[in-house]
């Protein structure tokens, strides 16, 4: 195994460049080094001005999403040896404005996420003395995979609809809405319906499926969206046939 690998890193310094340029760095090729370790080496040893986001280094915080050799990846979970002999091309996540180097502007997602109210909504909260809201393993199974979302935005980066229609609420936000809609303790489906059923919601999705392929946590946002399409369509027909039977 060669002892070094080349990282081609996209640099964008607004005070220097009007568009990103690629810069190559030689970093040690070690068996347990992820792309993020390579970037950290560059920042520590070669060029302290390189900017990128990271936090947990163990695939749970969702901060270090980048485009590695054209694919949206968590840079902490993508190993250099898998790209040997290299080079490894590291760019910011696609479909997002770039602030600096590998740092993207996540405001759009942060604005959209609360619109789907991704939290448990109850009509009436039962008093604490009554204890927890109990749930069977089957009820947990209904939504558990969607609860694995870490908001890393790789799905937004993979989605061609999001790049064409920036108003699209997007895969993760819809998957998280479904995470609560399918939770037996939740009673907020009706409150989420208007946003989810809007043209910018589920109906913008044309089932490309790349969001589910890109997800590092095995969430199936594409599946969540298709499932909600069926729910929304059924609800609309019910409303049409029985306009007075509200929940």
């Amino acid at each position, binding site marked *: 195994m060669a002892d070094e690998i080349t990282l081609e890193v996209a640099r964008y310094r*607004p005070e220097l460049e009007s568009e990103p340029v690629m810069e190559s760095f030689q970093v040690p090729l070690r068996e347990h080094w992820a792309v993020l370790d390579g970037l950290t080496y560059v920042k520590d040893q070669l060029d302290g001005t390189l900017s990128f986001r990271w936090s947990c280094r163990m695939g749970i915080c969702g901060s270090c999403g980048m485009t590695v050799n054209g694919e949206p990846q968590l840079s902490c979970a993508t190993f250099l040896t898998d790209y040997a002999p290299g080079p490894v091309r590291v760019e910011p996540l696609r479909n997002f404005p770039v*602030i600096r180097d590998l740092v993207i502007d996540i405001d759009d997602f942060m604005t959209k996420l609360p619109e789907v109210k991704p939290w448990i909504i109850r009509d009436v909260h039962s008093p604490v003395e009554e204890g927890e809201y109990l749930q069977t393993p089957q009820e947990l199974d209904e939504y558990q995979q969607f609860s694995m979302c870490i908001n890393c935005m790789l799905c937004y980066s993979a989605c061609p609809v999001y790049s064409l229609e920036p108003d699209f609420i997007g895969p993760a936000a819809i998957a998280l809405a479904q995470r609560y809609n399918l939770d037996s303790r939740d009673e907020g489906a009706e409150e989420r319906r208007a946003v989810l059923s809007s043209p910018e919601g589920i109906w913008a999705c*044309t089932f*490309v499926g*790349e969001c589910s392929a890109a997800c590092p946590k095995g969430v199936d946002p594409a599946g969540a969206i298709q*499932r909600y399409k069926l729910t929304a369509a059924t609800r609309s027909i019910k409303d049409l046939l029985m306009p007075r039977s509200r929940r």
Partner: protein
Amino acid sequence: MSTYQRPLALFWWLERRSYLLFVLRELSAVFVAWFVVYLLLLVNAVSDGAASYQEFLDWSGRRWVVAVNVLAMLFVLLHAITWFGLAPRAMVIRVRGRRLPPVQVVAAHYLAWLVLSAVVAWLVLR
């Protein structure tokens, strides 16, 4: 804050197979619409009498009409097959507490397709 927005390449949809499939499926809507128009033209020709129907058949036999219809059928097949393919992702059906395997959901769709086609064939050919 000045940010950089990567421009979308003109041929972005050729970058991945799934993107190409997505664009083709979007395009298939045009051909689905064409078949609706074609069916309406047929119904109209039939209602106008035998001569009109014969005229429609002659027109349908023209090379370019056949070519358009073959192309349209390929796109409609793509549309139908990808539609059936996503069915199990949209339909989570539980039978006695157990989730119906995705293969069975897809199979049910193809079976329904077959049955409906057989009914239409019987109506037309009897």
